């Protein structure tokens, strides 16, 4: 159990002569909330796609949930949860139907499916909206339902790509409480965000600049290291060093 849930060594991804991800190495421990930050074009999305088994590394190696990212991409996909701001549920299916569909895709049994859906609806206090079409829900609720769908199959780790973009300030905080809760129950969270206050919620934060990880530590230690008051200032100091223009 003590082996890291993500282990990456010298991971590289090149597109022709452009090195999008340049020799990154890091570990994520089980149960951590790991913030994966960087300016636009720093290489976050490319790195995340490799970790999720969606893109093949040019060089380097890594494991996610015990599976090799070079050779076991399909196994990784079935053992992780994934949600992005752009990832949409099906608007013309109800909340329940969306959950059931994804439970089916992840191969849950009928009994597991129903039990898991009940748990999620109760956690969201959303049982009354079970038969509402997702298209009729406010964005904030869609995002909360999307998070539940991404964790329905009880993955050991869930990848969240800007999950709170455009969401109102109260819902944004409720969303982070869902994350806190999942982490308290042992799920590892790997999250990207443009809101620097959200970086403070993470156990550890990595900041990518021009394809490399330039900083990796707890928010407290990063602020000490850069002698600044906020994660926003840490981010700005590092992002200003960027040479490439996306």
């Amino acid at each position, binding site marked *: 159990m003590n082996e890291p849930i993500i282990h990456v060594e010298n991971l590289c991804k090149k597109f022709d002569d452009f090195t999008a991800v340049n020799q990154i190495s890091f570990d994520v421990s089980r149960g951590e909330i790991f913030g994966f930050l*960087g*300016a*636009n*074009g720093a290489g976050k999305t490319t790195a995340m796609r490799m970790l999720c088994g969606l893109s093949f590394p040019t060089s380097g190696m890594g494991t996610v949930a015990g599976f090799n990212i070079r050779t076991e991409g399909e196994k990784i996909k079935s053992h992780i949860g994934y949600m992005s701001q752009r990832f949409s549920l099906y608007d013309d299916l109800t909340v329940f139907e969306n959950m059931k569909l994804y439970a089916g895709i992840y191969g849950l049994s009928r009994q597991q499916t129903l039990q898991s859906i009940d748990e999620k609806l109760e956690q969201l206090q959303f049982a009354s909206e079970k038969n509402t079409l997702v298209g009729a829900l*406010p*964005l*904030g609720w869609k995002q909360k339902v999307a998070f539940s769908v991404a964790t329905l199959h009880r993955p050991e780790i869930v990848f969240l790509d*800007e999950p709170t*973009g*455009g*969401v*109102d*300030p*109260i*819902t944004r*905080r409720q969303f*982070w*409480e869902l994350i*806190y*809760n999942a*982490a*308290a129950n042992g799920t590892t969270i790997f999250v990207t965000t*443009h*809101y*620097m*206050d*959200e*970086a*403070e*919620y993470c156990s550890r934060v990595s900041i990518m600049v021009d394809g490399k990880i330039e900083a990796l530590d707890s*928010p407290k230690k990063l602020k000490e290291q850069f002698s600044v008051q*906020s*994660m*926003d200032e840490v*981010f*700005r100091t590092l*992002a*200003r060093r960027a040479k490439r*223009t*996306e």
Partner: protein
Amino acid sequence: MNMIEVNGLTKRYGNVLALSAVSFSVAEGELFGLIGPDGAGKTTLFRLLATLLNADEGTATVNGFDVVKDYKSIRNCVGYMPGKFSLYPDLSVKENVDFFAALFGVTLEENYDLIAPIYKQIEPFKDRRAGKLSGGMKQKLALCCALIHKPKVLFLDEPTTGVDAVSRSEFWDMLSNLKQKGITMLVSTPYMDEASRCDRIALCNEGKILCIDAPANLTKNFDTPLYALAADDMFALLNAVRSIPNMGDVYPFGEFHHLFSHSELDCGKVSDELSKKGCNNLTIKKIEPTIEDVFIKLMNNE
């Protein structure tokens, strides 16, 4: 004369009320922010003012022209940068600029002074197709195209969404420069920390305007005692605060939790109580609100 006048604008899409009797005005030369999450009605409002949609109820004028009767005059004197990249991806940077200039019967050279500070940043890529530009470059090109005819009013719909903190701040610097040149601007954003860059802001949610004022006034008039709390285990602290009756609402706020208290607190006493509940290394202090605190309070009052 106000550059923008909005009176009771209402817009429905089927059963969805996108905009509910919204009224406000923007003075000439003002930088006015519409601040709110997705679904607040910001884009609908821009489309109504840019004469791309008609309202169900209410009236509006831009530069003294009525948005329904005088739509042709409005289209000549406003620049509109939609939230979604809407230039021609198959045309080069220069071709896009020339195209928009031709539409308005002007040339790049004619209004070069106005757009030069922005255009110079994309000029090295002027032969690149717009579709192949990075996000930040696309944004600058879109701003150039919206400014090419030297508009009196600029509509910017979420120009900084999905953009990192450094690029966002650079974009607002560009807007401050345009303000110096006398252009009136209506800008929307979901990022509350950008509020302070505006002269006045309207906080909006679910089709309504919650309030309108200068950012500094909004925080100055906040009358709820507000406290920042931190401890070693922040999630446990959140639950501990909630377990004490009548404390008020508490929300995670980055490094600290913010407590919207019902009354002035004895910080020492609260600290003792939370320590008894197992919270270690407690910090509790009274703080000044941010725009986001104001927004949360107004949402809760609704």
